[in-house]
Structures are given as C-alpha cells and as structure tokens.
C-alpha cells in the first residue's frame, strides 16, 4: 500500500520517474540525474526514507548512451521498507549531483563509486581516489579492464588457464 502511495506521488511530481519495478525483492525505479536530489529529499521528508544503505554503480557496456547506472538503496527504518533508485548516465559525461548534503554517509560511498567507475559527483567536498593508488589513471571496475595486473611478468598466463 505504501508502494502505491510512493508510485503515485513520484509519478505526479517528477517527470523523469519511470520503470516502477516490483518483480525483484526490492522495489526499484528510475529517475534522471537532474532530479535525483529532489527525489531523495522528498523521500527523506515526506516518506521517512532517512537511512542511506548504499550507493554503487554498474557498468553496462551494451546500453549505448546509458552505460553507467548509479544505484541508491534507501531504507525506511520505521516501516522496514527498502527502495532501489537507479540513475543511468552516459559514459562520456557521467555527471550527477552529490547526496552529501542530505546524507553524510554518501561521502565515501561516492568516492568509491568515482574510484571504480569514474562517475563525477558534482558538489562533492573531496572527490579523489579512496581505495586505489592515487596515480592510477583508469577506472578499474569498468568491463573493458582485466582483473589481473597486465604488467606482471612472473605469472605465466598459459599455466593459469588464460
């Protein structure tokens, strides 16, 4: 029932709201990068989704113009209900406003997403690499990069089944 309230409210207030999906275990929907902060704020204030569980990203190289998908997981601790919000971004210019104004926890979550996928969070206080070495020049979790270090010489690829 709460699902329907959110569905109605969001589809009326935000034009880019689409893909309301209840088939998977967590209800998910999609918005655009321009409206994400307003959506998060209204969910925070009106509906009580005041706990940010996670921010992460997924790389779909097959979807053209929408390769990077930033996924927000929200949680309403009172009604024990979770939400998943997806924002698709173009890999040429993956800009999205930061959620740190609303949730302090988003700080390092966004840094991690930037470190691995190259998503630029506009307005973030310190968007630098957090887990990888500082001078790394590529974004390792994108699908085109291999898992192994390409410069290593001691392990023979043939013996390792590659």
């Amino acid at each position, binding site marked *: 029932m709460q699902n329907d309230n959110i569905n109605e409210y969001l589809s009326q207030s935000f034009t880019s709201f689409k893909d309301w999906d209840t088939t*998977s275990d967590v209800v998910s929907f999609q918005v655009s990068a321009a409206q994400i902060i307003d959506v998060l704020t209204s969910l925070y204030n009106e509906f009580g989704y005041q706990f940010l569980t996670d921010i992460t990203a997924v790389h779909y190289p097959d979807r053209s113009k929408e390769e990077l998908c930033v996924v927000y997981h929200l949680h309403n601790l009172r009604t024990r209900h979770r939400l998943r919000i997806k924002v698709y971004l173009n890999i040429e210019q993956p800009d999205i406003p930061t959620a740190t104004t609303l949730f302090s926890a988003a700080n390092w979550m966004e840094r991690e997403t930037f470190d691995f996928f190259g998503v630029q969070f506009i307005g973030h206080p310190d968007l630098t690499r957090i887990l990888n070495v500082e001078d790394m020049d590529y974004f390792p*979790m994108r699908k085109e990069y291999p*898992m192994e270090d390409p410069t290593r010489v001691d392990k023979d690829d043939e013996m390792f089944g590659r």
Partner: protein
Amino acid sequence: MSEHHIKLPEGSIGKQTTTINVGPTHPATHGVFQNIMEIDGEKIIKTVPTIGYIHRAFEKIAERRPYYQVTTLTDRLNYCSAPINNIGWHTTVEKLAKIEVPKRVDYMRVIIMELARINDHIICNSIMGVDTGALTPFTYFFQERERIYDIFESICGSRLTTNIGRIGGFERNFTEDTWRYIDRFVESFPKMIDEFEKLLTRNRIFMDRTIDAGVISAERALNYSFTGPNLRASGVDYDVRVHEPYSSYDDFDFNIPVGKKGDVYDRYLVRNLEMRESYKIILQAIEKMKELDPSVYHADVPEFYLPEKDDVYNQMEALIYHFKIIMGESDMPAGEVYHSVEGANGELGYYLISDGGRTPYRLHFRRPCFIYYQAFPELVEGGLLSDAIVALSSINVIAGELDA
C-alpha cells in the same frame, strides 16, 4: 589535500599544529589504515583518514568466479567472523535462485553465525582492553576462541577463513566431535565471560578512560548510516535479524541491547551483552534441533548442491548434475537481489546482479566498516589523542572489510 600545520588561534601555547601520522603499521594489529592528525599538544584539531592499503579488488575478482567459488572471497571480508560472511553469501544466492532450505539447516546456520559473532566480539573487547593497557583479559579471553576454532574445524576443516557451508546447506553434517566441542564451549563460556567482565567492566581505570570518549549521537549516527553495535550503543535498536529475519531468526527469543550515550563504554557494554544474547540463542538452537531429523544437512537442490561422490560414480543423473555445476552450466536465473545479514559490525549487504551466466555480472558488498569509518573524524576531533586511540579500537574497524 589536507592542510598541514594549521595556524592556532591567539592565546594558544604553540603557533601551529603538529602533524602526526598514526600510520598504516599499527601496534595491536587493528589493520592497515592511516590517520593523519593535526594536534595541538594532546588535543586533536583535525584528522583525515586514508585507507586502501589492503585493497584486494574483491568485486572485480568476483566477476570472474563461479558462484560457489565466491565464498572464499567473502571469508576474507571480516575475517574475524568469516562464517557470517559465508552464510550471508549463501542466503543471497538462495534468495536469487529461490531455494528453500530445511529448518534444521537454518538452525545449524544460526549456531555457526552466533559462534562467529561471539568470536568477533571477543577480539574487539579484548583489544579495547589492550589499548587501555590491560593485557590480562586479552590473554585469558583469547583461549575461548580456540574452543570456537575447534568447532569450526570439525565442520569445514579450517579455523579462520572457513568457507563454511554450501549453496543449500552444509558440506557435512555436524559430527559427534562437533557436538562434543559445542557442549564443551557451552559449559565453559559463561564462566569465561564473567571472569572477563569482572576484570574490566567496573574497573575504575577502564571506566575513566572510556566513559565520554568518542561520543556520537543517534541522529548523527543514522546520518552516517551506522549499523550494528555502534548504532545500538547510540540508542537505535536496528538489528537486521529482527527487522528482516533470515535463516529462521524469528523462531528465537532474544533481546537487543541498546546503549544510551554512544560513547566507548557503551559500545563495550553492548558487545558484552550481545555475546550473552548470542549464547542464549545457541542454547535455544541446540534445544530446537533435538526435535528435527538429524540426517538432514542440505536442501534438495541438485542443480546447485554437488551430489555425493558415491552417487556420481554410480548414477547417471548425479554425474550429469556434477558436470553441469562444475562446468558452469547451472540454472542461475537472471535478476538482481540485495540481501543483508547482521554481521558482527553491522548490516553486511550483498548486491548481486546476475545475467544468467556462470559468474555474477556485478557483485557489490555493502561493508559496514567502510561506511562508519568515515565518521571517525567526528568522533575524535576536539578530544584527546588517547581518547582517539580508544575510540578507534571501540568501533572495531577490520581492514579486510574496510578495503575489500
């Protein structure tokens, strides 16, 4: 990026702050993470944490491993309580593939997970004692972990990084040895924890060091997405075992200890009480398992659970299933799922996207240590350096989970 040698205001003793590096190599082996602190005498003005010194790229490796091999990676996240991570992963895959496990498997899992939780809390509280100078409780209480290791070893063969369980259950039933070790643990644990509490809980020095150090209020903790004992010490009773019960936790009767102030002493007390609650859960699980059929230890899902070697050599279907599972033609449905378990440090979440193939398309770990460690500057700025050290050990940062 961080500014060094901040100018101090007029009237202070020094002219600018000193930069010290509480570096990656720590005594008392908390793990490798760094804090660059600006201090004025003993007071901390600003601190900037740096992490990534043990980044092992779990998420990238997981995209290349079949589902049953990812368990070895999950072990190494919070390595002090590895079985919780393993069982969390198995329950995630079971959620995606819609597998139902029998009750007895659930209860076996509950026993193992609570033992792992006790394991982790023993380490955290003992190390908190060591950081305030009390080495004796550490030496005494660590012995209890050897008994827990014996239990794990009799099931899966390994003490620390257990790789325990399989998708659908366990690899072998609890043997007689296991039950003997569990009985031995059940007998000796209450005495050990009482002894530990007698040494530290009402100890004047420990209380003076830890009360009102590293305080965080409930609102700030929720804004920083704290979970687990750190959040419960600040007053919010959020526990994944009660909010979204998995593995039949709703059959058990246990309390959730909650603190008042959110300081280091509250976290210590919450962890101690949680150990006692875990003990109660283990006793209840042992009682409940007596009524169930003792030969059941896995679900009947031949597409995901390897058949017995005997059957593989003698029966055709078992051979085919064995081949399919190992060669990776298993029927994992495409879809995405987010499942979380109550780890020893908080809500450990697995966000799994599958495209129907042999390996996950994307696996993301929602690691509680990573998320609450960013609140560390707020815990310690304005306080003394010795309070910062105790606060750091009280929030129980495990480096494996921080960096994944």
